């Protein structure tokens, strides 16, 4: 599968009168794993929605492999960009197999029925997420981590070159957060899928992403490798928080430690 690039040029968007994105531009290289970070209401989810064309921008445009997405047919676009909202709701009683099969929707037409390619895509998606044994189980009986894997499997079955995820780790325990991020990394490495996700947890974002995009006030404040973006200055500007950024002893990536009003444990850190 080929990797795709995604560019946003000078996006402005909002809900009704409220402007949430203000002249935001991003450039996502093919095959990258990108994390968008920022404080609440900085426009990061809106950016993701505009990138997936759930929201039409008031001005600016989104380019997929160099061509604008706004004229593309809905199913055609859905075969190239997958989107997973923050906490999707599974219909009551639906089985894992069936939910994952829904990912084939854009590949099916009015008269084209279920094909061998569909079956293979679903089977591979289940295998990749380790869900083959759970195929017959009802989604609402699964644990939070397993459920998130089911949704990712659905997006995998969609077989898109680009996958956009809105906070895929919220409401998950830390072990399941790591599990989900590992899975996305694997997907990115083996299939070359371009992954863009909104993440709340800065340190996990820095650890897993090739590229960090830090947003503030509807604009892109900084974008680049975690080392260039996750700095004490960025954290101060984007989150309004005093922090210390050190090197993660395990991965060598930057790691942010908040200081808070009382400067952490004691005066020692402040004076150093």
């Amino acid at each position, binding site marked *: 599968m080929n990797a795709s690039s995604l560019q946003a040029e000078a996006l402005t968007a909002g809900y009704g009168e409220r402007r949430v994105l203000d002249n935001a531009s991003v450039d996502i290289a093919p095959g990258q794993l990108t994390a968008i970070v920022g404080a609440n209401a900085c426009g990061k989810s809106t950016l993701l929605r505009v990138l997936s064309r*759930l929201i039409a921008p008031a001005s600016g445009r989104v380019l997929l492999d160099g061509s604008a997405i706004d004229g593309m047919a809905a199913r055609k676009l859905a075969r190239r960009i997958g989107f997973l*909202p923050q906490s999707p709701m599974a219909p009551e009683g639906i089985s894992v197999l069936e939910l994952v099969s829904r990912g084939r929707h854009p590949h099916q037409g009015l008269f084209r029925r279920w094909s061998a390619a569909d*079956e293979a895509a679903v089977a591979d998606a289940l295998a990749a997420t380790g869900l083959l044994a759970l195929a017959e189980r009802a989604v609402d009986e699964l644990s939070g981590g397993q459920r998130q894997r089911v949704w990712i499997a659905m997006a995998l079955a969609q077989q898109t070159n680009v996958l956009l995820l809105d906070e895929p780790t919220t409401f998950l325990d830390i072990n399941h957060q790591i599990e989900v991020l590992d899975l996305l990394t694997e997907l990115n490495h083996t299939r070359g899928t371009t992954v863009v996700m909104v993440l709340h947890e800065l340190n996990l974002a820095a650890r897993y992403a090739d590229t960090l995009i830090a947003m503030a006030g509807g604009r892109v404040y900084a974008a680049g490798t975690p080392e260039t973006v996750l700095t004490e200055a960025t954290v101060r500007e984007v989150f309004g928080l005093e922090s210390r950024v050190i090197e993660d002893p395990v991965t060598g990536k930057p790691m942010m430690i908040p200081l808070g009003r009382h400067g952490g444990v004691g005066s020692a850190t402040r004076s150093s």
Partner: protein
Amino acid sequence: MNHATPAQRAELSALRRGRFRRRRGTLALLAAGLLVGVLVTLALGQSYTPLSTVARVLVGVDVPGASFTVGELRLPRAVACLLAGACFGLGGVAFQTLLRNPLASPDIIGISSGASAGAVFAIVALAWSGPAVALVAVAAGLGVALLIYLLSWRDGVTGARLILIGIGLAAMLQSVTAYLLMQAPSWSLQEALRWITGSVNGVRLTQALPLSLALALLGGLLLSRRADLDALRLGDELAAGLGVRLGVTRIVVVLASVGLVAFATAVTGPIAFVAFLSGPIAARISGQSGSLLLPAALVGALLVLASDYAGQFLLPARYPVGIVTGVLGAPYLVYLIVRDNQRKGAL
């Protein structure tokens, strides 16, 4: 990243085939139930007509006595029950799926009441009859649907507000119907009950024709959208991500299901709770595999047919079908409220 082995793929295919078979089995079972139901209602009423005689009447042989009881009385009734039930079932489940809420069915949010008020207005105030009444009913149903939508719009439409506004409008429309009925030159209880709770008494075969056309056209339209409706059950955003065109799908589904419900209401009145009940019952019977549209249509037809038969012959007195479904449906609505309370409370 792991790929599935051929053996695993085969296993999944087998699983899926099993589900398809079960689904087809359920559909066949429902259809068989309907067939048996129709035969029973044709053969067994106040008097028993042998099936052979029923068959002869159906192919057009003139049998003294039976031609009247079966051909004039029982057949139109059975046909009206089937068609109206299927229309209510389809329209109801499409609405419930679109709004992802079992309570958002056209009979609870006032669309049936609107169609009924329209039909009564055409009959009483304009002294119209026949297809013109159906058209007024459809227009009124669509008008009410539009009104509910506009009134519940405030930074988007949410289920709770839409349902509550629908309940409020329904209360008003029901009193419109009651008022119009009282203006009618002769207050006939049976006729009034048709427009208040729904009834198939005195229905004629000619009324079935527009209804079957509506069912074929609008039902076909809905069925052609069933993949999109299925995707919509995952939520608007995910569905859009899967390539569903939300705006077009919403408009098509709303128009088609309001049309179905309104056409049926124009013939039988707003048979209480059938649109509301059919979808959830179909989901319970057929499991989650595949679209609920066909099962719900069959369940709706069966529900109306069986309730009408029970209302005629199985209860101590003769009741119109809407009374029977009204008494049946209310406990289920209560169950739904209570169950929802015990879960997260997504209402």
